[in-house]
């Protein structure tokens, strides 16, 4: 991974599929997989749950304590922008039963690969749980993210939450389908 930006705002923007945008505390620590000598950060004494890199999960998901912690809601995974999730469809299918949360990473805001990752997780894998946008997440990506399948957003720390919350109602119409619904242009015709 060329660039790793995973610091985030202390508050998370949640936008459930059939709900309204709202703020919540960030309970999840995004772990790069490289610090702590490659071992899981110590969760016993921390208040945080941990999102591990998908590549780390691939190596460690057979370990009993990893599975236990995931099932306890303490471990989720995040996908790097260059992870080819379709190559590991079996692992993702299995993960669907244990992960409390998945995330997709934006190394820089103008790298749109994670939009396709989210679309595939929703469309191909039918992942029903939360998908969080992490990394270089800026206010002006929220609308696109919300439409491809993200329903929570760990904004970059400098982003203004009041401006962020207003993004989701900028448009009342759409001209292509998205995870959130059918295009308005079709909905009005398909009677």
């Amino acid at each position, binding site marked *: 991974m060329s660039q790793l930006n995973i610091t985030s705002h202390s508050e998370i923007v949640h936008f459930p599929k059939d709900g309204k945008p709202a703020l919540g505390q960030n309970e999840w620590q995004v772990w790069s997989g490289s610090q702590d000598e490659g071992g899981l950060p110590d969760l016993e004494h921390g208040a945080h749950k941990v999102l591990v890199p998908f590549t780390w999960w691939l190596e460690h998901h057979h370990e009993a304590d990893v599975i236990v912690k995931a099932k306890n809601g303490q471990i989720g995974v995040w996908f790097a922008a260059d992870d080819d999730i379709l190559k590991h469809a079996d692992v993702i299918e299995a993960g669907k039963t244990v992960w409390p949360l998945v995330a997709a990473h934006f190394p820089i805001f103008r790298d749109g690969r994670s939009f396709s990752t989210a679309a595939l997780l929703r469309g191909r894998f039918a992942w029903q749980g939360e998908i969080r946008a992490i990394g270089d997440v800026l206010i002006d990506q929220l609308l696109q993210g919300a439409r491809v399948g993200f329903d929570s957003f760990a904004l970059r720390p400098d982003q203004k939450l009041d401006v962020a919350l207003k993004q989701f109602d900028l448009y009342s119409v759409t001209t*292509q389908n998205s995870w959130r619904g059918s295009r308005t242009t079709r909905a009005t015709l398909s009677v």
Partner: protein
Amino acid sequence: MYKYDAIDQTLVDQRVAQFRDQVARRLDGSLAEEEFRPLRLQNGLYHQRHAYMLRVAIPYGLFSSKQLRTLALISEKYDRGYGHFTTRQNIQYNWVTLEDTPDILAELAKVEMHAIQTSGNCIRNITSDAFAGVAGDEYVDTRPICELLRQWSTLHPEFAHLPRKFKFAVNGAKEDRTVLLCHDVGIELKKSSASELTADIYAGGGMGRTPILGSLIKRDLPWNVLPSYLTALLRVYNRFGRRDNLYKARIKILVKALGPEEFARQVEGEWDHIKNSDDNFTQAEWDRVAQHFTKPAYKALPALSNEQVINLATEVEKAAFARWLERNVKPHQISGYASVILSLKPHGTVAPGDATTAQMYAIADLADHYSFGELRATHEQNLVLADVEQSKLYELWQEAKKQKVSLPNIGLLTDIIACPGGDFCSLANAKSLPIAKAIQERFDDLDYLFDLGDISLNISGCINSCGHHHVGNIGVLGVDKDGEEWYQITLGGEQGNDAAIGKVIGPSFYADEIPDVITNVINTYVAQRNSDEPFIETYRRVGVTPFKDAAYKNAKKNEKVEKVIDGGTA
């Protein structure tokens, strides 16, 4: 032509509000320039050498007199009294301010226009044949599909930050007037034997630093599944297109690296999962859109012969009028009608493709009087009145003369395609416009131009190739060498059905040498041609050597050996 419904109108109005807020955040400093840049580009706003430039979409080239009047108004109120029509069916304003841009977009929204995705790393304005719906050689009227694709691509969330810009062209006629194979995706529409509308998909074409012609990756795709197929194609590109190197980020590099067969296989693999999805177009959507592209209220008119039309003119004007008929008037599907090209390349013009405020207002009136209030913008940077009664051609010609848009140089050497070049563009290595002007001044004799016949001459101010020099029979490319402006010549490029990428002939020239170089190349053609043989055919028959020898015969200043920029498929 297409008329916005409430959904389209709401969307462009809300887009104006969104951009107004983004501009306000930029101006109050809460949005950094680096982070504003992709946002403004997706609204067609560039920061140029001297000022901001706004690029407004003319989807598939079709617009109304009312829209042209708004474009004129914007040029008058917010710019410096002109607009520049581009090769991709947009109009650009070179002198707007950031502060005014939201108001300009609001003016555009009032007449069902916008600047959405005219730039940036997203699906750009979709282009098509300027003669769609009227061309005599048309198989399929491309406009309903273009409009459906315009809607599908507008603010598409998954493809808002692609590795690089992404350009579609759609063709439906025997003669390709869209440079189909030089697009990221070329869509060739056809009617099958069962009268089903289908598409052949070409991918991975493009000009720029590494010019490549697109490859056929899918045959006979039913029209209604275009959204799911194109989603699959773009998803493969979004996930695997290179992002490490700006110059290798276009889809053409991915298609070339994988090979067209493997690329097609990957797209097919993705498409298998979504081909039956709700993304696909429905018949109801087609019906809603297609009703806007019915034929206008044509009169039942007899077809006039060329002689009958020429006889409309006075004796003294007959020769000049006949010339205009030959070059600027095209056959039509409907008896008694013709399509007229208004040349935006008068000799000595400031820039090919420019129209002044006054010209825009006047041309809007011409559209109302002669062509059902509709216009087309062409890939060659001219304007078209598509539905003119043959019996009114002489009258129209006289009106066009008053506006200086009647020069009969369509398809001739001085119908130059040129980018704005170093006079405006911050990317350019060299100027384009003075070169175009010098060539037009050198070849100002219409008799001679007519004798030379069809020749395309395209000029780009840098390797990005906005002037499409790779597909000009004669291409001129501005290059920078040690801070000096030089010009490299390519020969043998061609657009249309026999599309070809031109070859670099050798070391580059100083600007003041170019008119002589072009003259020498043209003289070689005249000496070598068989009767009625067009330039490109002579070139293909005799090869590059005599042209190259002629081009360099007087060259004195370029003696030092230099590295030739590869015009091939590096």
